[in-house]
């Protein structure tokens, strides 16, 4: 009687186990080595086809390697999804992720070193911008192949500058006292309502760039020691706090920024809501598309020593530990990052934009030769002076950009400085105290990762 009663239960259990068995059987699939002939299914995670730059290069790969069945799992890279895939023993063959996240996966053995892939395809990290190459190298071995170099520059609103009697040719970020004075002069508010934020230091987002501008660093070169409470870091936070406080404080400033229509025709530059702010280079493209007549002037970001500098970030391809089709994964990475592929992609993007009556502001690949060829063969003057000058500023910034050192606890260190900045700007702690606590947290996190 009892056994019969338990029958449905048993059936259900068997069904579940049978499902698991299905997964297990796949594990026996053959793996290809880097040097093998690329054939068969190739799965990716984190790569989408939003524009010509992606589509053209993927198409080139498909034509060159028809025996490879490329399956793009579109959507942004999702750590949770990647971890589950790793834990289940079925990782994708290739992932496309933020370069800042790469070292923590490499340090935990989740990614394959790519020396062999580089050897087979003749790839060399020296082809890439030093800032990008440094981010994908962990313990002197390559774990990824960089794509794109996003740099930061200064964008200013000519109307706000004129309003405050500031000569655009004299604007730079070298003298912080003068910067604070400009911030006061350009800010417009009534009561607790801001109408224009004079200077937006973009902190915590751009904190490492400001620290570098002051001559400091948030991490040691080997990425294993945090320097969040250095005098330079404290100075940056104190400066940012004064600028934010004169505009009404963190509450008002943050709410004002959150209300901006960053990607619309009424963006803060077109709507005269901002005076001066460091921005990512791609914002030039947004402005060119949505408000090409906005009164913008693009300038290099400079350190206190008056030397231009820029913080670079970007994406990378990496091959997970346990990837089955290493041969195809390696070829795809190579094919996507050749100068020929980049030039073809950039040309397609330029033509598509021109066909829609939009300006093309360049494609910045992180590959030195590809960038040079795009500038020579693809880029054309836009006919708008401020935009052409902006493109020149981006190109110069590419050459002087620095990246944060690859750190196995990069995420923790970043959260630590972000929290410290938020606390200090919100008045919950002094800049020095907030950064001291952040330093303790970052140090503890680095020690924990080091102990693993």
């Amino acid at each position: 009687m009892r056994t019969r009663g338990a029958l449905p239960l048993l059936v259900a259990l068997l069904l579940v186990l049978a499902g698991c068995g299905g997964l297990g059987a796949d594990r026996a699939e053959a793996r290809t080595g880097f040097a093998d002939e690329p054939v068969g299914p190739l799965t990716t995670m984190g790569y989408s086809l939003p524009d010509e730059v992606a589509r053209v290069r993927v198409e080139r790969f498909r034509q060159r390697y028809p025996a490879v069945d490329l399956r793009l799992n579109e959507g942004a890279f999702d750590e949770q999804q990647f971890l589950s895939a790793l834990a289940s023993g079925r990782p994708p063959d290739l992932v496309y992720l933020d370069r800042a996240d790469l070292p923590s996966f490499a340090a935990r053995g989740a990614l394959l070193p790519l020396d062999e892939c580089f050897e087979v395809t003749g790839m060399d990290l020296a082809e890439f911008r030093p800032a990008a190459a440094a981010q994908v190298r962990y313990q002197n071995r390559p774990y990824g192949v960089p794509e794109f170099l996003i740099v930061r520059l200064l964008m200013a609103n000519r109307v706000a500058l004129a309003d405050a009697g500031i000569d655009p040719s004299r604007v730079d970020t070298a003298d912080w006292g003068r910067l604070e004075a400009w911030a006061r002069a350009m800010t417009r508010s009534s009561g607790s309502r801001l109408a224009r934020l004079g200077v937006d230091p973009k902190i915590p987002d751009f904190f490492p760039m400001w620290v570098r501008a002051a001559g400091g660093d948030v991490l040691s070169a080997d990425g294993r020691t945090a320097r969040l409470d250095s005098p330079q870091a404290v100075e940056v936070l104190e400066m940012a706090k004064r600028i934010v406080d004169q505009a009404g404080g963190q509450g008002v400033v943050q709410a004002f920024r959150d209300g901006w229509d960053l990607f619309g025709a009424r963006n803060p530059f077109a709507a005269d809501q901002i005076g001066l702010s460091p921005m990512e280079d791609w914002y030039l493209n947004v402005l060119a598309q949505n408000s090409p007549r906005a009164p913008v002037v693009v300038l290099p970001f400079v350190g206190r020593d008056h030397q231009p500098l820029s913080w670079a970030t970007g994406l990378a391809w990496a091959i997970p530990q346990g990837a089955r089709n290493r041969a195809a994964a390696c070829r795809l990475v190579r094919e996507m990052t050749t100068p020929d592929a980049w030039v073809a992609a950039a040309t397609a993007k330029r033509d598509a934009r021109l066909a829609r009556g939009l300006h093309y502001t360049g494609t910045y690949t992180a590959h030195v030769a590809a960038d040079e060829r795009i500038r020579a063969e693809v880029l054309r003057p836009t006919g708008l002076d401020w935009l052409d000058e902006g493109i020149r500023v981006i190109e110069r910034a590419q050459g002087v950009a620095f990246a944060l050192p690859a750190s196995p606890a990069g995420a923790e260190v970043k959260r630590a400085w972000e929290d410290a900045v938020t606390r200090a700007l919100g008045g919950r702690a002094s800049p020095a105290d907030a950064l001291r606590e952040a330093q303790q947290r970052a140090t503890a996190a680095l020690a924990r990762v080091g102990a693993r």
Partner: protein
Amino acid sequence: MTPGTPAGRAGQHRAGQDRAGRDRAGQGRARQDRARHRRSPAWSSPARRSATRRAEARAALGFLSPWLVGFVVFTAGPLLASLWLSFTSYDAISEPRWVGADNYRELAADPLVLKSLGNTVYYTVLHVPLSMALALGLALLLVAARRWGPFFRTVLYVPAVTPPVAVGVLFLLLLNGQTGLVNRALRLVGIDGPQWTSDPAWIKPGIVLLSLWSFGTTLVIYYAALQEVPGHLYEAARLDGANAWQRFRHVTLPMISGALFFTLVVNTIASLQMFAEVYTMYFGTAHTSAGAEEGLFYVVYLFRQAFEFLDMGYASALAWLLFLVILLVTLVQVRLSRRFVHYEGRR
């Protein structure tokens, strides 16, 4: 209420309705448990009735088996695994390494554990009573509004089925101190509203305000409970000269105290596990950075440890601490309920 059970103060004539009402309020499960305990000795007896019962039990088990298997495989298994993982150092990539009670020791010394727990408790203490009061007030209005009742019932329930991520993004816009609709409305009546999403002092009250949006489920439970309060009790109270407040205080409240207690328990548990809206507002892709400290709720911190810092062992320890906190709070609530909750037929 089965025949032969003492009818209690409410009278026998509405016993069936009474049970249906409380079942809806979630009290049904406890009753069924009691009933099962009373019946269990009969299973082993050779009587004919017990044969039927065995057949019924088999059928019940059969129908329950998908859930039972699901529970064992997807809930109980991971639960036990997380207990074990809480004693290991595990990053979901390499093999777990046993570290004994290290994670728990670290947890005791981690200021962010206390901070995030504090934020969560603050939220719970405000959200639970406020949402209960709001739901009860609206349920009372719904009962009174006979004609438009079904319409408003639907409208008021709609927020409960809105995805929390959408609610988070929506409220980020609504509560924006500079351009948000809430402050614009306040300005119309001459109030200069606070910076709900960016001023550290107002972030948590802002989150509480947002949370009141989804009281639909509580409201439906109260509405069902209120329908079951027998009219003759109000009549009797009226004859005794009780005014509206006294009728509410001495008739309505005791009669729906079971539903109130149930919602108190489940809302408290849900509040202590608050995640999606806060994560969307202050940590997700559309987030505003000002809430990094005040918006750091316990489960957000747990998620961060697990999936941002890849410290699954520590995150598991955090999960078990939360489990213990919830267990403790619920036990205290159950204890207190003996004094305040009125169960018909039991006392």
